[in-house]
């Protein structure tokens, strides 16, 4: 005879913690398995540093600007922008993997959890942000040989700035991915996001240089949240705080996380993957 089993106890705080650890562990495993991802995350900014920056060094002089206390080489100037580039590419890679999971059905495992979906998506964003941290430090370790030698305390202050910026960029990627209908469209859409975000910012040239080039370009740089990510990272790397950048990045990250969670539609994967 079948007897009724008592209902499972309600999930407590420990369950939330376990879920976060599980999601982080999976992200780490996936990252470790994709060695080429780590390799490209390292090589991409190094090529910029070794080739692009070397070429521009002679043509471009950087006067004394905050947070640097002295004249700097172009390699030193460009390094924080390249750190932000690592975060940007990692965020887009993570969004791509979410679109892939959604299309292939893997996302269903996450969505059938009894925990709130908003919390699970936030865990995914945080896990992706944490995965980007070792990539950044690996890049900075190699960049040391190119003369990028921030104070040791900078490496410590960099960590919270990295996590905040990675959260912002990850949420942006997730938000955009909710509107991408097919996996094949992802690369095309991302090109329209990654390149303008990177080039129309203070990653490659200081803002005063942009202003010299044109007022419109300067205004666009000011509207680009990536600019504030770069500046937050730049100041943190030299043990200083850029309050304006911190405020803009924090508010934008919060808004984008909310928008990404609200825009996320679990039915999108279902309607294509398993309709019958």
């Amino acid at each position: 005879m079948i007897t009724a089993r008592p209902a499972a106890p309600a999930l407590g705080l420990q369950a939330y913690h376990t879920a976060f650890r599980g999601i982080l562990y999976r992200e780490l495993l996936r990252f470790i398995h994709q060695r080429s991802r780590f390799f490209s995350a390292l090589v991409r900014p190094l090529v910029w540093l070794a080739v692009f920056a070397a070429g521009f060094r002679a043509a471009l002089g950087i006067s004394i600007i905050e947070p640097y206390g002295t004249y700097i080489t172009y390699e030193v100037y460009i390094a924080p922008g390249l750190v932000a580039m690592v975060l940007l590419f990692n965020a887009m890679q993570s969004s791509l993997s979410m679109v892939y999971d959604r299309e292939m059905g893997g996302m269903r495992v996450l969505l059938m959890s009894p925990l709130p979906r908003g919390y699970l998506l936030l865990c995914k964003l945080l896990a992706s942000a944490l995965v980007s941290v070792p990539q950044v430090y690996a890049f900075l370790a190699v960049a040391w040989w190119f003369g990028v030698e921030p104070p040791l305390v900078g490496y410590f202050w960099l960590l919270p700035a990295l996590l905040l910026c990675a959260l912002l960029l990850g949420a942006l990627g997730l938000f955009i991915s909710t509107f991408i209908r097919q996996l094949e469209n992802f690369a095309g859409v991302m090109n329209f996001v990654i390149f303008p975000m990177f080039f129309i910012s203070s990653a490659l040239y200081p803002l005063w240089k942009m202003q010299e080039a044109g007022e419109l370009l300067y205004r666009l740089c000011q509207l680009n949240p990536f600019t504030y990510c770069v500046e937050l990272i730049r100041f943190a790397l030299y043990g200083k705080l850029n309050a304006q950048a911190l405020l803009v990045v924090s508010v934008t990250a919060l808004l984008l996380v909310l928008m990404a969670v609200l825009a996320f539609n679990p039915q999108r994967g279902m309607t294509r993957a398993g309709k019958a």
Partner: protein
Amino acid sequence: MTPDANLLPRITPLLEVEQLRFAYGAGGPRALDGVSFTLQPGQFHALLGPNGAGKSTLFGLISRLLTIQRGDIRLAGASLQRAPARVLQEVGTVFQQSTLDLDLTVEDNLRYHASLHGIGGAVCASRIETELARLELAAQRKTRVRQLNGGHRRRVEIARALLHRPRLLLLDEATSGLDKRARDAIIRHIRRLCSDRGVGVLWATHLIEEVQSRDPVTLLYQGRVLADDTALQICRDSRRATLVEAFETLTERRPTPVESDEGTAYSTEALST
């Protein structure tokens, strides 16, 4: 003396599906139209219908991947719309399309699922061990899913769906693509879960051979319930010898059975025209 039905204690069904309606997109055709049925604890309940009948849509609704538009789903009395977390804690699902992470090992896939249900540490390790042994997968524990054959992958999905000890197990075409031997092994295991552990199973299939005469069956066709009774009773009511014939009578069509190594099925074309 016949006992008065009103005096008997009312037993809450494990699953109650009540007047479900669902359409993909506003104004689109209804994938489900007024679907209602119940499932008791320990029952192996077959959801039978050709491709496009609405089986996967129903599973999507029960597992909350789709949002209920009309009607309700209750699990042991708890409404999915009012208490989704309580319901999802008690539901394990195996979809027709694999949802395993091919690049992770069997164990890592199971661990990931367990963590999403708040199960970690020693409890997680012990449950993984139990389920892998039960489904004869202990040797594949450290194998990446990509290297497993179809039958093993299905078993991993079933083990995963059972890790959080659900009271209801949803299996959508769980034997599709498997040879007869692998199919029989999985069905045997699922039936044992019903009898030994009291798990209620909703088994969606288009293969009539997988249904036994005493199994409760819900016949789904074009989003509507054609019949909801035991297989034997459906045959009796339609005065047909087999469920295949009963289905033909109920749909007033003559779909062509297709013989394959998976058993007798219906061609989608025949049923959809």
